[in-house]
């Protein structure tokens, strides 16, 4: 479904991805893990069309990813904790509903209720946790084949993290949608992951089914990660 073919990504003097080749299947929850600066966010940004490969190609359903292709097929949640601060929660949902034809307004309302978000509250007055919840609501309300989440748990307390994980299970259509998550909070999402990709120094170190790691290798993802890194 998503293919990286010999992708190299350079930021001026820094090599973020190095001859990166990867094929991601459809309808799975995929975790992208690795140490800081390993290339996780770059991988997601390439799929989102926000950056372009220096070499190689990234395709989604056979199409080269551009900003236009990605905006129709990918919902991207950035690691950055910023939204339009002048909007209220309800207005933020309204704005995205006007922007994307695939935005499911009733699903968004359902998520807002589930996350207990006050629609009349200004985004700038929300706590970090509630901003995180709002990001999730916007992200999951789009009916697109690929949902990208870059560090969705970063800086959030365990209760918010738990509500996000439960939200994923409740509001994602696993028949048609693929979720790709980068995170350092591996334990939180371990129970829901199907596949895990380990990245080191801009290269794919290993890609494994979570079931294989748990049942056959009898390891947690963190233990597996440590083993592979050594």
């Amino acid at each position, binding site marked *: 479904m998503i293919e990286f073919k010999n992708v190299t990504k350079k930021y001026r003097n820094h090599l973020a991805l190095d001859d990166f080749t990867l094929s991601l299947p459809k309808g799975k929850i995929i975790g992208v893990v690795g140490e800081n600066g390993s290339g996780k966010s770059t991988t997601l940004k390439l799929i989102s069309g926000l950056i372009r490969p220096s070499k190689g190609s990234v395709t989604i359903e056979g199409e080269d990813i551009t900003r236009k292709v990605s905006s129709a097929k990918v919902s991207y949640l950035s690691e950055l904790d910023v*939204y339009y601060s002048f909007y209220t929660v309800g207005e933020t949902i309204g704005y995205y509903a006007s*922007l994307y034809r695939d935005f499911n307004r009733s699903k968004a309302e359902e998520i807002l209720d589930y996350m207990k978000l006050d629609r009349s509250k200004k985004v700038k007055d929300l706590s970090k946790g509630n901003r995180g919840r709002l990001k999730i609501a916007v992200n999951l309300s789009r009916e697109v084949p690929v949902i990208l989440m870059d560090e969705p748990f970063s800086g959030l307390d365990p209760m918010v993290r738990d509500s996000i994980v439960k939200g994923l299970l409740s509001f994602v259509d696993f028949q048609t949608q693929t979720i790709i998550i980068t995170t350092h909070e591996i334990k939180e999402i371990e129970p829901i992951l199907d596949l895990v990709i380990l990245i080191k120094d801009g290269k794919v170190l290993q890609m494994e089914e979570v079931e294989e790691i748990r049942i056959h290798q009898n390891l947690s993802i963190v233990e597996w990660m440590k083993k592979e890194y050594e």
Partner: protein
Amino acid sequence: MNPWLGQLKKEYRLGKGGALGALIALFLYLGLGVYTAWRMGKPETFFAFCSVAVMIHVVYMAGYLCVSYFLEHKTMHLWLQSPLSVSKLLLAKLVNGFAALALSLFITSVVTLIAGTMVMDVFELNPDMTWPDVIYIGTFLVIHILLISFYIGIGITFLWAIYLVTTKTLGKISGWVIGLGVFFFGPWILAKWEDTKLFDALFIWGKVNLKYNDFVYGIFKHVYVGYYFYHLLLALILFLAASWLIERKVEV
């Protein structure tokens, strides 16, 4: 709702604070004009304040867009994730800036008209001047201020695109140096080009004589349609180039 209308509304909300701030500054400035004229006992001083306020609108769009682009910088990833093309995204900013400019210029023009005809009485100073002259000159000035301001706004948009591309590829300092280089040398190169015979042959056509009173416009008796066409073309090229650069070269 049409996605572009949604974007237009978002740009309205983003720019509202800056536009209101500019309006408050305008009223404070005009208030200062009233106070100065009263202290000096010269009503024409207020007209001079108003005239400067009208002319300053030439850089209104530049100011509006600088604020808008600065604010957008913080949410660039959200802006570029939009399903709209960059040209539509930029157009939403330009349309909002133009509406704010038109409102501010309308208010200032009305105050200036009142100052010129009632406070100072321009008809007493120049007995040849008539109401149609005032309307004609005023309309001519307002239309040109709107056009020039919009034009400068497109120039600023182009500079922003250059800045975004160069800072990402070459670094912040290089981005500023190149941006400033284009800012200072661009108009200089264009001025050189506009001095050539080829330019005259291509764009100096369609002479239109203006009907102004010589007292007011002794040095500005005619305009060329071709010259307007040239600037329209240049504005279009700059806008499309900015859209292309951001669409294809900017990364966040």
